[in-house]
């Protein structure tokens, strides 16, 4: 029973860590499937986290904060689109510029507005997304195994965790079963063919990046108003890049990407527990090794040692119409 409880609690922590990763990775999926590299996931999340925390603190409502987060992230992704689609700028440079600008702008504005060293005021009550207890969770708790899993693992998360869980099948459905999804994928694979079919490549990429902005906005909001209680500088701490790694590890497909996010989040949850614990055979594993594991795995995958990743064919190339 003891081990069972530990496992359930580990998985519970995994879900909480995985939520922003899943949302950001799905965000990146729309962008990259449409042929636009997006290393600006980090910046968009950070921007959304700051905006959501600021607005939630002022308005007292987490939902208004969510709207502000999404709006900010949308603005940043339109900037990305403006630079890389309209002006055919370098996509990597644009993403990086967005990351750096936001990393500076959020604490600058936070410092000027709240005078708390770049943080936003602590959120509580309705200005945060709180856990939702699903029906019968308490009644079921005493049912062996299933009841405990239901009460601890499935019930009691905040709404954004459930949104992230829903986002995976929805994304899969949009990408593979709708006209929009077909076009997004086509634009990323062969924009010339799409153009020949009379669809505007640039407009499609703008739309895809809008979805990216929307999802990143939710991911960022989660960090500051649901997982945390307020904005802290650099609170994304590389999660945008980790999501990018998960996206590649999941080979740009929704369900594998979700599992990659869960795997990476699980290593994070385990890492906290393994600190100083000697394992059988291998002995004590350095924490830093576990922290670096997602990145090492991604490199190995990219190198073709663990399966093979096929990125969208037109990724990273601005589309220039032949004249």
């Amino acid at each position, binding site marked *: 029973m003891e081990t069972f409880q530990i496992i359930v609690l580990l998985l519970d922590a995994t879900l909480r860590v995985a939520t922003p990763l899943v949302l950001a990775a799905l965000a990146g999926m729309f962008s990259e499937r449409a042929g636009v*590299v997006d*290393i600006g996931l980090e910046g968009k999340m950070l921007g959304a986290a700051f905006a959501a925390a600021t607005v939630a603190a002022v308005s007292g409502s987490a939902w208004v904060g969510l709207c502000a987060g999404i709006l900010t992230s949308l603005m940043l992704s339109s900037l990305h689109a403006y*630079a*890389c689609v309209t*002006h*055919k*700028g*370098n996509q*990597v*440079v*644009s993403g*990086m*510029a*967005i*990351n*750096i*600008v*936001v*990393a*500076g*702008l959020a*604490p*600058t*504005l936070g*410092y*000027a507005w709240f005078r708390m060293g*770049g943080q936003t005021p602590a959120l509580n009550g309705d200005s945060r997304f709180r856990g939702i207890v699903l029906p019968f969770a308490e009644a079921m708790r005493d049912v062996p195994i299933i009841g405990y899993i239901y009460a601890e693992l499935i019930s009691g998360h905040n709404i954004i965790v459930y949104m992230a869980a829903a986002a995976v099948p929805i994304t899969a459905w949009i990408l593979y079963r709708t006209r929009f999804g077909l076009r997004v994928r086509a634009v990323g694979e062969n924009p010339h063919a799409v153009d020949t079919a009379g669809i505007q490549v640039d407009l499609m990429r703008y739309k895809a990046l809008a979805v990216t902005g929307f999802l990143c906005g939710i991911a960022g909001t989660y960090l500051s108003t649901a997982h945390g209680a307020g904005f802290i*500088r650099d609170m994304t701490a*590389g999660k945008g*890049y980790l999501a*990018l*790694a998960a996206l*590649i590890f999941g080979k740009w497909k929704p369900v594998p990407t979700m599992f990659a996010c869960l795997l990476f989040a699980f290593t994070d949850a385990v890492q906290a527990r393994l600190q100083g614990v000697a394992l059988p055979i291998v002995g004590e594993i*350095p924490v*830093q*090794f576990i*922290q*670096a594991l997602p*990145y*090492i795995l*991604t*490199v190995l995958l*990219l*190198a*073709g040692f663990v399966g093979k990743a096929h*990125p969208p064919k037109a990724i990273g190339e601005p589309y220039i119409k032949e004249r």
Partner: protein
Amino acid sequence: MAEKKPKFGTPPKIPGWVNYALVPLMNLLAALLISGVVIIIVGDNPIEALQVLVYGAFGYPEAIGYTLYYTTNFIFTGLAVAIAFHCGLFNIGAEGQAAIGGVGVALVCLYFDWMPTWLVIPLAMLAAAIFGAAWAYIPGYLQAKRGSHIVITTIMFNFIAASVMTYLLVEVLIDPNGQSPESRSFIESTWLPFFHSVIDMPRTPLNLSFIYALVLSGGFYFLIWHTRWGYEIRVVGQNETAAGYAGISPAKNIILAMMISGALAGFVGVNEIQGVQHRLILDFTGGYGFVGIAVALMGRNHPIGIFLAALLFGALYQGGSELAFEMKNINKEMVIVIQGLIILFSGALEHMFRPKIEAAYRRIAFPKPAEAR
């Protein structure tokens, strides 16, 4: 030298200074303009802020010393990113390569400190180059031989480098008498000489590695434009397929360019670890690797341009810390905003102003004769 008449229908040639001076200047102005707007939003006076910034960067001898010290780092990372660009590669990993280069420097300074100073200094530089190059070799190899995208692998290698650094400083190299994750201090005979100990100027972190950076810039120019290696690197960067037909191995040159890039980035460790900190610390790379991308972009991958861009960012770093002291609503992150905006305008949005500037230049320089209408 008689001017050749342009062929009918071809647009008149735009002189170099428009492309190499006017366009970057316009991009810089746009970035500063937006930064000014941010400063107004924050509630300060942008003109005053600019004055403080310029004075803080160049106004007195100590400021100049600090500015040039930051400039040194940016020259190293700028050159590092530039040589990769010449080979058509995007090295985002200068940050990690610099960190690992610093480990090389620290190992020499910690364990070879019985050697005389004149031997330790070149040895440490060599170690920085070897460690940085080795760290860049892996992404280079993976790009050349296994087709893994260099942007992604170098990003991943930055994170792996950060973990390696933490591990080394927490578990291996930590000063047994200290609490914080840093190595013991190096003995004084391994330090790089400071400028203020040689010439008459106030105490600043400016050290010998500044001269070294200038020498390397000259070497970079020679390597890229006057040697066979540089030629091959540029051909691969322009067109891999053509390079292959010309008997130039793309794979070999990709790996070579990445290794030189990593070595150059590693020299940040020489300036920071051997020149200033005199011990290995965490996060001494402080974003220099990322700013190197901006430096290379603004400097158009040419050593002179890179020097000027590095000077600009050095001034921004130094003047920016002054800004945080002097202005009541601005803290030091404002510099990061300005940096990001410069990268945005001179990198991602570089095609925004150029066509307009070129068109305007044509209109002014080559006015259409009236009868042509």
